[in-house]
């Protein structure tokens, strides 16, 4: 029993970390898709955000003596702004030029890793950027001592996790309690209805894509901080996984969080099976564990996509003349 508790205490922070990352990026995509624009460029945007954020943090760290968490905060902010700007390419193509949304997003996905690796090599001579330092928060006074919750949420925690919680609360309120949220949701379901009531579809959709860009950029930096401490032009498929979270979560924030937890669980189980004794005793080959999150994705998608509640107008360029 104590053994199990220890194992949970050990695994839980990892799960929370992955869950925070997945839900932030998926929440962003939720804003884009519920405004009516498909955004499969999450992976590319995350990479750009991660790249800009990691680079900024290295520069800051080498030149200024500021507390670690402040540096993390700066990195996260730069990542978010970069993601927002990068996503504008997708917004412009999809909303203004009415181009195919899958293709313009795919272009971003191709561009981002190539650009990041090329630039990193040009600047540092190495294809990776090393953030080196550990940005986790070991202990928080008082909170870490709470039984169960303390070790799970407040030990080895990351600033980004708390930011994720904050973002979730804000996102939920914006989506369901503000005029902007109401309009955003109507644009993804029936833009003609919104248009006839004087809602500016183009503005709303730009806003939707930009929010998803900012949160994906932020997610990119979260990945660097809490998963790898180095950036080598990839975010390990977290962008696409977030898309799966969004779809399995039926484009709804609360379900999305639950699904993010499930995906995070599988992800962690696949990464650290050796440390978990119960699992080691099963004696399965490593490869099976590695495949787990992807198999789980397929299975969950297959089960949940039947009653799929995708926004009705998602992926359709808005054309006021169409009756």
């Amino acid at each position, binding site marked *: 029993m104590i053994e199990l508790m220890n194992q949970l205490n050990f695994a839980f922070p990892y799960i929370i970390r992955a869950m925070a990352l997945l839900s932030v990026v998926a929440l962003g995509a939720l804003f884009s898709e519920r405004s009516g624009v498909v955004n499969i460029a999450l992976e590319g945007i995350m990479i750009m955000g991660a790249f800009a954020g990691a680079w900024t943090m290295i520069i800051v760290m080498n030149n200024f003596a500021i507390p670690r968490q402040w540096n993390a905060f700066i990195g996260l902010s730069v990542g978010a702004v970069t993601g927002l700007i990068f996503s504008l390419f997708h917004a412009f193509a999809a909303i203004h030029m009415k181009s195919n949304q899958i293709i313009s997003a795919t272009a971003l996905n191709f561009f981002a890793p190539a650009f990041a690796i090329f630039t990193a090599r040009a600047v540092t001579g190495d294809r990776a950027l090393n953030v080196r330092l550990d940005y986790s928060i070991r202990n928080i006074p008082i909170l870490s001592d709470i039984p169960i919750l303390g070790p799970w949420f407040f030990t080895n925690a990351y600033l980004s996790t708390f930011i994720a919680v904050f973002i979730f609360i804000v996102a939920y309120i914006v989506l369901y309690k*503000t*005029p902007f949220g*109401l309009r955003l*949701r109507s644009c993804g379901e*029936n833009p003609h*209805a919104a*248009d006839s*009531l*004087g809602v500016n579809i183009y503005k709303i959709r730009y806003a939707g894509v930009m929010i998803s860009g900012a949160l994906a950029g932020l997610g990119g930096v979260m990945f660097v901080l809490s998963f790898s401490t180095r950036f080598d032009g990839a975010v390990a498929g977290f962008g696409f996984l977030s898309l799966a979270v969004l779809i399995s979560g039926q484009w709804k924030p609360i379900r999305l969080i639950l699904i993010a937890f499930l995906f995070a669980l599988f992800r962690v189980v696949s990464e650290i099976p050796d440390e978990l004794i119960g699992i080691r005793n099963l004696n399965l080959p490593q490869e099976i564990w590695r495949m787990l999150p992807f198999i789980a994705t397929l299975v969950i998608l297959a089960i949940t996509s039947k009653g799929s509640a995708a926004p009705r107008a998602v992926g359709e360029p808005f054309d006021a003349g169409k009756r």
Partner: protein
Amino acid sequence: MDYVIEMIDITKEFPGIKANDCVNFKLKKQEIHALLGENGAGKSTLMSVLFGLYQADEGHIRVNGNDVHIRNPNDANDLNIGMVHQHFKLVHNFTVTENIILGSEDTKYGLLTYKEAREKIKELSERYKLRVNPDAKIEDISVGQQQRVEILKMLYRQAEILIFDEPTASLTPQEIEELMKILKGLTKEGKSIVLITHKLNEIREVADRCTILRKGKSISTVEVKGTTNEELAEMMVGRKVVFELEKTKAKPKETVLQVSNLTIKEKEGNKEVVRNVNFKARRGEILCIAGIEGNGQTELIYGLVGMLPIKEGSILLNDKELSTLSIRKRSLSGVSHIPEDRQRHGLVLDFTLENNLILQNYFTSKYHHRGFLKFDTIRDNAEKMIDRFDIRSSRGPVSLARSMSGGNQQKLILGREIDRNNDLLIAVQPTRGLDVGAIEFIHQQLIDQRDQGKAVLLVSLELDEVMNLSDRILVMYEGELVGELDPSKIDEKELGLYMAGSKRGEVS
């Protein structure tokens, strides 16, 4: 003067067609002003200009005597102009309240004041007798209630001038009656109303004046009281319209379609929406299935043509069992179908007219050679059909179906299905939303088909149509056939009793 709206010399051109050509239209305060015209005459376009959805190329608009520019619906809204569109503009998974406040939300500390809005809507719906539950989702309420939501949307924005674009096209007779009462009530409260409709009886019932459009031009504005229906129709079409159908007595021959013990379950769910239905359709007769919307007619037809699986029973077409065949095989076995939802099931809206005409037989050797389409043949066919069925459009065979008016879309489908020369012709609500000229044309075509020895199966919600066109009536109520009637022996009242389920008879 005391005009609330004056539209002067409005011209609006679309590629290839002048939808409005120097149109004049004036609306008095507190009147109900009908706008009448054939399909494609430019009624919706004119009102869209007033509502700011389109910009006029020429002409100007005055509201309460002041010159105004209406560039978008927001401008119209600020001038207290509201519009209920021909196809409702509602978000299906929003609540009634959300749909109403969308675009003009009130807030407190940046958050929606949902509760206050809800109270306000309740108040409005009581004051104007527009009963609807503010918390219901749009997809769960009836078409009639959805329309009330559209009206509430305008009232919530304090509209004084209300535009209704064919509000009765998809309502049941009861709902229409209620709407007429609501319209009258609104003018008593000081509102002024523009009513676009094809139904002369409705104009007669509620409208004070009527402006007639023909081919984009305004023909005249008349007092409804001093004008007969015949005169209105003549001004609208430009020739005399025959209201009485020329129809000889039917001479039914052998059975074409034999339906036995047919039971069908609803699309999603387990309820049996068609229960143990038995009937025959014979050559040389128009058999009509009458009933109030939602009593299983739609599903019955879906079952016959293969769009819904059947649970039990058999469908024999000339002694061939259809119930296990695919939609295409049934169609090739001799079923022509004019579907209820012409835009969803009858046409590919973004295809051209000529391509829509071959949807049912592009795969036959007539239209392709070793897998390549024969464009010349397709074009010839389109030209022949345009001629024969008087299908009007801006660019002939290459017009997009989407750009055509409802009446002409329907003629396209009718032509395509009739031309296939099948033994059975199923027509579901073939005249919904059409003008009197087009209705006359389509009725005549259906009668011709009967006289050529086809079996015509008609589904209609309109009592007039049922009484005038059919040779035999089957009434459907809650999924069952509850009566077989001879239209020459009953009146509309009695038919109504059967449809409402308060009377039952025998079905042979």
